[in-house]
């Protein structure tokens, strides 16, 4: 008997543009024109008609060059940017009977609650995900406090546990982030993201800017967490090596459009779209 994987996220016709748009936009933008900006009205089509599905425990990679729209797509799913069109259907993996919810239509309060309870995000730049004026413990505690944890002893116990899980020395719980190295800061971000046991972990270029040995340790950690928690992850990277190590399926973006999607091995071994072929050959 075949078991169907539970759907967690279903993105439907998701689009985001910056500018008013005009009747000729579709004609002059996109991968064929190598530009996401309309030469007539100046509108930037950051993400156009994105469609994909993410299943429980799956790691989906989004790859593309700078300006291809992958981070815009990730930020729309992180509910930090409101899409102009489309739906982000979320299926609660912890409750089979629950109806799918369209995250795009939630009000600001519901979005904030959802982001805190169900989403975790790790940014390329730690200062985007961490408050550098708070201690490491304080940063990890934020999501717990938002989830109404009101016992300092219990909060600190949970932080120490998360620090151990993410290979951080728990005795440095009260140190300030600027005393940590780049790789450690990424692990602090991961500990913070995991603190609310999210249903979906978003990773935005997590290993960019780290040296190779540190990069390998962070990737090992992410892989271990994914394996232990059966965590559903959406991984954005311009590095095909990272995508290859973590993602089972991959979508390739160029100029705001998804140009190819499929199993990561298939995309890397047998790329179909000329842009994907270029990406793969550049990596090799």
């Amino acid at each position: 008997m075949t078991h169907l994987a539970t759907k967690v996220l279903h993105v439907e016709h998701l689009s985001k543009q910056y500018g008013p748009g005009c009747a000729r936009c579709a004609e002059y933008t996109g991968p064929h024109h190598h530009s996401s900006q309309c030469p007539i009205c100046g509108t930037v089509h950051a993400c156009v008609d994105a469609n994909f599905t993410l299943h429980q425990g799956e790691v989906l990679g989004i790859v593309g060059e700078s300006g291809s729209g992958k981070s815009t797509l990730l930020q729309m799913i992180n509910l930090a940017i409101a899409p102009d069109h489309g739906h982000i259907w979320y299926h609660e993996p912890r409750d089979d009977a629950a109806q799918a919810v369209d995250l795009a239509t939630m009000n600001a309060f519901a979005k904030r609650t959802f982001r805190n309870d169900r989403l975790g995000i790790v940014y390329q730049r730690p200062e985007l995900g961490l408050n550098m004026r708070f201690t490491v413990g304080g940063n990890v505690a934020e999501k717990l406090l938002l989830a109404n944890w009101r016992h300092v002893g219990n909060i600190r116990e949970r932080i120490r546990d998360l620090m151990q899980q993410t290979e951080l020395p728990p005795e440095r719980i009260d140190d300030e982030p600027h005393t940590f190295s780049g790789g450690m800061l990424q692990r602090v971000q991961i500990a913070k993201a995991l603190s609310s046991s999210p249903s979906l972990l978003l990773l935005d270029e997590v290993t960019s800017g780290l040296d190779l040995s540190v990069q390998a340790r962070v990737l090992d950690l992410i892989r271990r967490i994914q394996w232990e928690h059966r965590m559903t992850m959406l991984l954005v990277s311009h590095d095909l090596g990272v995508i290859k190590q973590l993602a089972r399926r991959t979508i390739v973006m160029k100029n705001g459009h998804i140009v190819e999607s499929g199993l990561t091995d298939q995309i890397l071994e047998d790329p179909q779209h000329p842009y994907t072929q270029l990406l793969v050959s550049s990596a090799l």
Partner: protein
Amino acid sequence: MTQTSPSQLYNFAFIDEDSKREVRRMTLKAVAIPGHQIPFASRDLPIARGWGTGGLQITMAIIQPEDTLKVIDQGDDESVNAVNLRRLLQRTAGVATTTDTDAASIVQTRHRIPEEAMRADQILVLQVPMVDPLRWVEPNLERATVMHGEADYGRMWVYMYESVVKAGDLRIASQYPVMVAGRYLMDTTPIPRWDVPKLHMAETLFLFGAGREKRIYAVPPHTSVVPLEFADYRFKVEYTPGQQCRRCGATDTFLTSHFVVQPDAPNGGHWVSSCSDSSYCTKRVLAQTVATEEIS
């Protein structure tokens, strides 16, 4: 030479009627949404911003000729600021003034809530130096406004957590953050922690005015005002065992201390404590004197 009356020199309560109407409208809005900061067009007054212009504008907007006014600063009726503000209102509104909390219909205050429990027919107007409790964690006003709108107080809780981690306890001496009606985070102004519980489910209307920051907020009667605290680190009011007022002997009031110089003493003097609310202290002393006289 003809004598000019105050009413001929100034509009009643100094500011013009349209401005008073605007302040009253914003005050009503603040009462309707407890703890929410309402922007208002703060007027120029003959005192500097930061010296109580916010509270003063509220008092000027709500005061009526039949009102009795009390003005205190740090609990004291006779401090320079309190006397100046009282004189200004007396001169421009011609209202009766008092130092007795019980006899006042409006009490304007800075840094204290009177010790005597206030009634439903009284209004307490507080002068506010800094409005937003989120300024400690979010200096950008626009982002802080969004945080209030979404009740996004996680960072404020981290600030409380950090206070415990760094100091071993909730070491916030004044301006203690509170949740009003379970919705808005509010700054209690520089009142000591001692006064914070007086805001909870009180009979009185509390109006907060910040002239420099141009904001009004309010705690209407019977509104829940809960200080931020943890299950293992509770909110506590100031209390030093054995400390009592040197005048009235009170141990159940907020006390201030000062050093009495005694050249002959080994330490050059000694510390004494006295009630911060001077009129309440005087009333207690008088009551004790009367009681002693009656007994003798």
